C-alpha cells in the first residue's frame, strides 16, 4: 500500500511541522500596549533588551494607534499602557482602568511637505499660521484619521486654527485611517502635507524629496506617558512585572537608555520622568 504510506507520511510530516513546538518557556512576560510611533522609530528594539537582560521579564509590545491601545488596555489585554495622548491617558486612569500615569519622555511633532511647498509654509515656526495657509490654498493635507495620539494632536491644532478641516475630508483634507508610516507613504504619494512625530520621521526610510517644513512651535510638544493597567479591574494583569518595567523606564538607567537612542546622530526621544 505505497499510496497509503505516502499519504500518512505527508500527514505526519505536516503535523510535525505544524504542531506548536514547546516554546522556550520564558520565565515571565508582560504585554505592553503601545503606539506605532515608538515601534516604527525603533526605540523598543533599543531599550527592551537592556531591561530584559536585567530582569528576565520578556516585554511583548503590541503597537497600534493610541486610541486602539487604550481600548485594548481597557479590555484588560495588556499589563502596561505606553502612549502619547495625555488627556485620554488621564481619563483612562480617572475611570479606574489604570493605576497611575507617569511622564516618560517627549519629542515633538513636525509638519513635512513636498519641496514644491504649494502653501508656501516652509520655514514657518508658527504651526497655527502654517495650517491656516494650507487650508486657505487648499493644499492637500494627509491626516492619520485613526484616533491615534498624533491624530488627536492634529485635531487639537485644527481647533486652534478655527477651521473644520474634517468638513473638507475627501477634498484637500485626506484621512488615511492608518498608522504613521502608512500615512507618510500615502501622503507623500499625493504630495500632501503631513503632521508626524519627529521620531517616526527621522527613522522613516522612504522620505524621497520630502522635508520638514514646520517645526519648533511649543504647541507641537509631544508627551509620552506610561500607566500600569489596574489589576483590581483586570485580575489577569501582571502587576508586579508590569510595575517592574515601569519602574525601570522611569529609573535613571531607563531614562538614559531612551536618551541614548539615536538615528544618524539625532536623538529621537527626550526623557523627562519625574518632571
Amino acid at each position, binding site marked *: 500500500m505505497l499510496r497509503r504510506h*505516502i499519504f500518512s507520511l505527508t500527514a505526519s510530516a505536516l503535523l510535525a511541522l*505544524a504542531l506548536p*513546538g514547546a516554546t522556550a518557556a520564558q520565565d515571565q512576560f508582560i504585554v505592553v500596549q503601545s503606539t506605532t510611533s515608538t515601534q516604527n522609530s525603533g526605540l523598543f528594539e533599543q531599550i527592551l533588551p537592556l531591561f530584559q537582560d536585567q530582569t528576565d521579564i520578556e516585554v*511583548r*509590545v503590541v503597537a497600534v494607534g493610541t486610541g486602539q491601545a487604550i481600548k485594548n488596555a481597557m*479590555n484588560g489585554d495588556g499589563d502596561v499602557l505606553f502612549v502619547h495622548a495625555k488627556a485620554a491617558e488621564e481619563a483612562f486612569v480617572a475611570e479606574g482602568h489604570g493605576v497611575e500615569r507617569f511622564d516618560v519622555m517627549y519629542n515633538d511633532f513636525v509638519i513635512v511637505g513636498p519641496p514644491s511647498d504649494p502653501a508656501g509654509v516652509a520655514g514657518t515656526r508658527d504651526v497655527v499660521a502654517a495650517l491656516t495657509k494650507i487650508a486657505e490654498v487648499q493644499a492637500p493635507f494627509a491626516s492619520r484619521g485613526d484616533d491615534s495620539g498624533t491624530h488627536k494632536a492634529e485635531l487639537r491644532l485644527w481647533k486652534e486654527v478655527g477651521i473644520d478641516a474634517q468638513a473638507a475630508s475627501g477634498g484637500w483634507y485626506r484621512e488615511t485611517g492608518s498608522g504613521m508610516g502608512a500615512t507618510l*507613504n500615502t501622503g507623500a504619494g499625493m504630495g500632501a502635507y503631513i503632521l508626524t512625530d519627529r521620531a517616526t520621521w527621522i*527613522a522613516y*526610510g522612504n522620505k*524621497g524629496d520630502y522635508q520638514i517644513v514646520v517645526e519648533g512651535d511649543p504647541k507641537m510638544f509631544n508627551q509620552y506617558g506610561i500607566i500600569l493597567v489596574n489589576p483590581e479591574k483586570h485580575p489577569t494583569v501582571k502587576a508586579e512585572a508590569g510595575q517592574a518595567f515601569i519602574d525601570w523606564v522611569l529609573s535613571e538607567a531607563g531614562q538614559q537608555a531612551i536618551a541614548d537612542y539615536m538615528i544618524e546622530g539625532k536623538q529621537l526621544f527626550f526623557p523627562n520622568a519625574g518632571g
Partner: protein
Amino acid sequence: MPSFLDILTEALGLILSWERALSEIVILSLRVTLTAVVISCVLGLPLGAMVGAFRFPGRGLLTVILNALMGLPPVVVGLMVYLTLSASGPMGALQLLYTPAAMIIAQTILVTPIVAALTKQVVEDLHGEYAEQFASFGLTARDRIAALLWDARYSLLTVALAGFGRAVAEVGAVLIVGGNINHVTRMMTTTIALETSKGNLELALALGLLLLGIAVIVNASVMALRASAVRATYA
C-alpha cells in the same frame, strides 16, 4: 521614489543579509498557517463531503452559507476572535490572545469554509457517479464519506492548497489577534505591513518575494507528491 528595478535588486540583497531574524518569522508563518490548514481540513473535509453526498433539509441554505463564508473579510474574523479571546471576552480566561494559538484559530475560521465549500463541490460530482454502487453495497453513511474522500484525494489536495493560499497571504486577522509581537507573533505578512509602514519598501518587497517563493515551494512539493502518488497507483 526609487524605481521598481532598484527596489528589486536591493530586495534580493536584503533577503540574503537578513536571514537569522527572517528564519524565525518564516518558521512561525509556516507553523501557524499549516496548522490552521490541517485543522481546517479535519473539520472541512468531512463537513463538505456530507453536504455534497447527502440530501437533507436545509442543505441548500448550508451550501449558500458555506459559499458566502469563503468571502469572510480577515479583519472581521480578527475582530471576532479578538473579542472572544480578550481578557474581558467570554474566553479570556484561556489567555490565548497575542499568541500563535490565537492566530491559528483565526486562520482556521477563515480557511474551513473554503475547504468545506470546495470539498462539497468535488464530492457532489463524484457522488453522482458512485451513488448506485453505494446503494448496492449497502454502505453506511460513514463508509460512503470515507470512500468519497479517499477517491477524491487528488482533487482535495488542490482544495487544501487553496486554503493554504488564503491563510498564508492573510494579514488582517493575524495582525489583530497576534499583535505582531516581535519574536512571538510576527509573521511574514505582518512583517511586510510593518516594514511598509516604516517606509522600508525594499525590505517589505523582499519579504513579499520570499513569501511568494515559499508559496511556490509548498505548492510544488504537494504537486510533486501528488504526481508520485498517482504514478504509484497506476504503475
